[in-house]
């Protein structure tokens, strides 16, 4: 390994050396130079180019959004989806630090880090999506308490800080800085509680954003309980995301997670899935009626795909106890739930507006550049997680 003390002085060099020491994860056997990593870097480079192009030449040159479709792929997928993916962190952190459920401790760090990247993805995308990127901080100094978007902005900043705080012990441990560690362990329970409150609000406020558009959003999705819908589906998604990533890292990183943790998580997915199913059906029956699924062929089909993939099939599979103890079944179901909930966010953000927008003459298909940026952001989250897994003690219980 390169000794950095010879390049940047003993003090800074020592810190860099410690950071680049991958001994805590040596047993995980993570290789950095793989074709997959190169592919991720390729995607990220594409996204960086698009980001620069977007800032230099404006929204019309880079996206297909228009006056009838002012929010597109970046808001629906990166922001709504990225935040929903991050819901696992507050659940696991709450379970471990507040409810004292010790068995989930082995996945706490990984799920918090995963959430950190989910939120980072959302934050970067929204910064590029707004027309005046350089003044994204305006809401923080120009309070407007009537606006859900103001609440979203404040929560995004606070929760990113909270997630960074919750993740920072890993870094300090590595550097051997005792005093910050001691301070953090003192405030950790408070930080977790703050994070739980922020997450409950942030997940639901993304749904609450759409409360003000009863006349534009399709009644298949619009409802007064949209904030709760977003929250419950995010819990489902968050638990599935943690399951998915635990099994996946177990497969590729050479570490094992106890089965009872995974079956506990999938029980959580089953319960929230049932609640979500009832809410979805209630909205359908009390609002537009079951007939609406068939009156509007396209939107009805989208609704049914979302429900089948993300809710109904997962519930049916997980209802069997044997399946909740079968690694392959859990893995498949978690992927389905993730896709289903992401599909729901795309439906709310893009397709549910189509009836109104088409009627007044609007149309929207994301541009190539919009897709490239989104792909690059996903690559960034995966690679970021991988790098952290290599250099930080992400799965403490596997070798302690």
């Amino acid at each position, binding site marked *: 390994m390169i000794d950095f003390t010879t390049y940047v002085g003993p003090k800074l060099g020592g810190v860099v050396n410690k950071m680049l020491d991958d001994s805590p994860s040596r047993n995980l056997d993570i290789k950095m130079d793989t074709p997959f990593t190169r592919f991720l870097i390729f995607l990220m480079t594409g996204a960086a180019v698009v980001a620069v192009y977007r800032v230099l*030449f*404006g929204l019309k040159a880079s996206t297909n959004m228009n*006056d009838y479709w*002012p929010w597109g792929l970046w808001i629906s997928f990166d922001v709504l989806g990225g935040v929903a993916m991050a819901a696992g962190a507050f659940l696991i952190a709450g379970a471990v630090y507040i*409810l004292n459920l010790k068995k989930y401790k082995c996945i706490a760090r990984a799920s918090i880090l995963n959430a950190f990247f989910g939120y980072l993805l959302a934050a970067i995308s929204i910064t590029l999506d707004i027309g005046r990127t350089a003044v994204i901080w305006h809401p923080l100094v*120009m309070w407007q308490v*009537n606006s859900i978007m103001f609440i979203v902005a404040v929560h995004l900043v606070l929760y990113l800080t909270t997630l960074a705080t919750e993740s920072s012990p890993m870094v300090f441990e590595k550097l051997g800085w005792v005093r910050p560690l001691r301070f953090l*362990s003192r405030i950790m329970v408070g930080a977790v509680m703050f994070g739980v409150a922020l997450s409950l609000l942030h997940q639901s406020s993304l749904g609450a954003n759409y409360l*003000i558009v009863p006349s534009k959003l399709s009644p298949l999705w619009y409802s007064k309980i949209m904030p709760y819908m977003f929250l419950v589906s995010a819990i489902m998604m968050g638990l599935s995301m943690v399951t998915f990533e635990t099994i996946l890292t177990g497969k590729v990183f050479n570490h094992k997670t106890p089965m009872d943790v995974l079956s506990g998580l999938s029980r959580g997915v089953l319960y929230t899935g049932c609640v979500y199913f009832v809410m979805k059906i209630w909205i359908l029956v009390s609002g537009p009626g079951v007939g609406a699924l068939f009156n509007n062929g396209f939107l009805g089909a989208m609704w049914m795909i979302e429900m089948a993939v993300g809710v109904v099939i997962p519930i049916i599979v997980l209802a069997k106890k044997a399946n909740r103890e079968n690694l392959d079944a859990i893995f498949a179901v978690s992927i389905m739930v993730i896709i289903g909930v992401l599909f729901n966010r795309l439906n709310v953000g893009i397709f549910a507006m189509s009836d109104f927008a088409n009627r007044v003459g609007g149309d929207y298909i994301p541009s190539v550049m919009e897709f490239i940026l989104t792909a690059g952001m996903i690559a960034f989250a995966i690679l970021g997680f991988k790098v952290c897994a290599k250099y930080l003690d992400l799965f403490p219980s596997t070798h302690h």
Partner: protein
Amino acid sequence: MSISRRKFLKGVAAGSGLVLAAGVPSVEARMSKELPPEAVGLLYDATLCIGCKSCMVNCKTHNSVPGGALYKEGLVPSVADSLQCKFTEKKETMASPPYETEGVKGNDGIWDASQDLSGKTLSIIKAYRNGTAEKKDTAINGYAFVKQQCMHCITPACASVCPAGAFTKDPKNGVVYYEAYRCIGCRYCQIACPFNLPRYEWDALWPEVRKCQMCRHRIKEGKYSACAEFCPTGATIFGKVTDLREEAKKRFAMKPGTMYDFPIQTLDSKETNPQAVAAYADKVYGLTEAGGTQNIMLSGISFELLGLNKDIPNGALPDLTWAYIAKVPWVFLGVALGGTTLYAITHRKDKNGKEKGDIHD
């Protein structure tokens, strides 16, 4: 963990007290649902409109002067304003109003040919056509005109959703105006507006949201909206909202065919356009839509045929989001108290145990 349980509980109690004291948003934060005392507005009577587009032409020229809704000095001054969070007076005249010369065959940059409301067009006259298009203000085999522009809601959704407070409803005359220096460009206003009226400068590097601001800069000079001043038939007239509503209801109730002296430019004008009253359809538009608007409309055919959103609810839209926002402080309080209680219960057994300090090692 080195913190004692009692110390921790004390901290939580102090924290939740703070949330209670500072967090509960005051009632004043809510948006008013009352019509401002000196509210002004426009009445557009489609049955008088002859489609000459004089309003559109004058809207564009009279708003491209300093203070107007289409005015922009340049990229550098507007970026500087945003970064410093303040508006600075600008005097330089624009080289030309923002004309849209594309999209029409044979128009090589000769005339302004707006196809729709846009970041460059604040008001537009559109035509409805059906079958042979013989008779005016008839749904079948007829034609009609419609004018689109900001309706100036009594409880504007755009103002309620803007995270930086870029939209304000003037407390006196009720004009909903936009301050570009605050805007971050999130376009939530476009999503929220039930009439889909705010438009965005998609092609600009430091884009603004554009919408009619009722010629606010002209009202300050003692004048009134350009579209009303330059309408030759009295299809668009300017006046106090309460009076305009009375006038609209009166016209709506009149027997078709009766002669009536329609005022031109303003409601109290001496100049009139004597016409036989047409058969009005549907309703007076703007009395109840989204909680009521300051601009109101009359038409000979239904407003849905004219392309207006038919699903707009009657209540004030910001109420829908306020119901959520009012609960926010209680979530913090609930999580703080509930979480602490749960923490105290679940950590009882660990009190003297070895496991207590192991969260982070």
